[in-house]
């Protein structure tokens, strides 16, 4: 079959199905909205109070953040460094999950019309979700971090040397797993490297520094004898996501 015909047919069939997933997702949202409407006023008051406390904490964090940004800017200017890449967060609802033994993907209810670029990083409150692999008119497909095809650069929280992370899938009914490799050998066997947080590195180019990937469950010497490798436990909420944020680089946003 000619490639152009194949691609056109695939896109046409995909776009024809996309509204049905969006509709299902909207119906679920309406259902949860009416479920929440049934909650008592007392619950609302308690939630409002908790939210006010959280907001106060975030206000303080914002002030601190602004000060740190200013400091980073001053240092960049002083040392003549290239500016740190900025991101805009585009919040999107999850329309469909497709997680099985071969692939781990999500379909988002936002696409090209909303400025989602191919290859953009996706995050949620628990850390990295994955990467946008396909963009359609009103939807986009995200490859999850637990997918065996997903690979990014990262580093351990207290060690800035880069390591490689790759998804390993998820056993039946369990949380997703990944593998960290190319970890410098000097830390193997030390307790400080066990259960340590693995975070993103700016080297990959699609995620900002320091977003959680997962927790290293243990490290052992690799088969090459030069580096260590180990298993990474991912966030439990990955397979039940309702809403995510797509990281859109501000540069490409300006270009668009």
């Amino acid at each position, binding site marked *: 079959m000619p490639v152009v015909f194949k691609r056109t047919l695939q896109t046409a069939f995909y776009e024809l199905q996309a509204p049905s997933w969006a509709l299902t997702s909207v119906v679920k949202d309406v259902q949860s909205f009416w479920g929440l409407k049934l909650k008592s006023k007392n619950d609302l008051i308690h939630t409002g109070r908790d939210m006010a406390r959280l907001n106060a904490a975030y206000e303080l964090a914002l002030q601190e953040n602004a000060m740190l940004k200013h400091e980073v800017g001053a240092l960049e200017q002083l040392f003549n460094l290239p500016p740190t890449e900025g991101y805009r967060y585009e919040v999107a609802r999850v329309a469909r999950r*497709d997680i099985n033994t071969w692939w781990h993907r999500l379909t988002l209810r936002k696409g090209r019309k909303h400025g989602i670029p191919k290859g953009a990083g996706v995050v949620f409150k628990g850390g990295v979700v994955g990467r946008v692999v396909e963009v359609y008119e009103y939807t986009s497909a995200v490859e999850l971090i637990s997918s065996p095809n997903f690979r990014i650069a990262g580093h351990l929280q207290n060690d800035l040397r880069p390591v490689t992370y790759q998804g390993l899938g998820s056993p039946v009914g369990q949380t997703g797993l990944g593998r960290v490799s190319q970890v410098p050998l000097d830390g193997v066997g030390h307790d400080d490297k066990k259960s340590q947080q693995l975070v993103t590195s700016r080297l990959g180019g699609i995620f900002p520094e320091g977003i959680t990937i997962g927790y290293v469950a243990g490290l052992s010497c690799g088969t090459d004898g030069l580096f260590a490798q180990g298993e990474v436990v991912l966030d439990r909420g990955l397979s039940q996501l309702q809403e995510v944020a797509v990281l859109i680089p501000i540069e490409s946003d300006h270009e668009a």
Partner: protein
Amino acid sequence: MKLKAQSLLPLLANVFLVWLIQLVNDGLSAFSLLLFVPALWMVFPVFYAHYKTGFLISVITGFWWDATEPTPFGTLAVWMGCVYVLMIHLKARYELKKPLHVQLLAQVMNVLLFLGYVCTLAFCTEFWVSSWVSLWLSWALSQLVLIGVLFWYVDLQKAIFLLLRCKPVNYR
């Protein structure tokens, strides 16, 4: 090969069933399982439709499923076309008409399609099986669901035909 108006009914029913299966798979995502029952989409075309239109319905449904999956486009469509031809041949040779025959043939079709799909994906380097337990549980679940849903789905398609007062070529 032309698609007649009444041939669109099983195709639309298949489209509806694909959507239902996607909904179920969305729920099964938490367990890393996949409900894979392409034989359900082929039973009506094999047993109750003209062989040419039945073939087209099967292949189009395969493409419909393929469009949403990250596999090479046409993987399932090609397998459905091949299995359809085999089943038509078997049905004609052994005069398979009884409900038990329908159920048996549907189970065989699903096994063949599942194995074909697994083998094709095995050749694509980007789709390696991350959990064999998940793979075999998905297969067992699919066969069980097929047993439970097959006659409901065939009867639903028959009911749609009756409701619209039209009939497929080989309707019995």
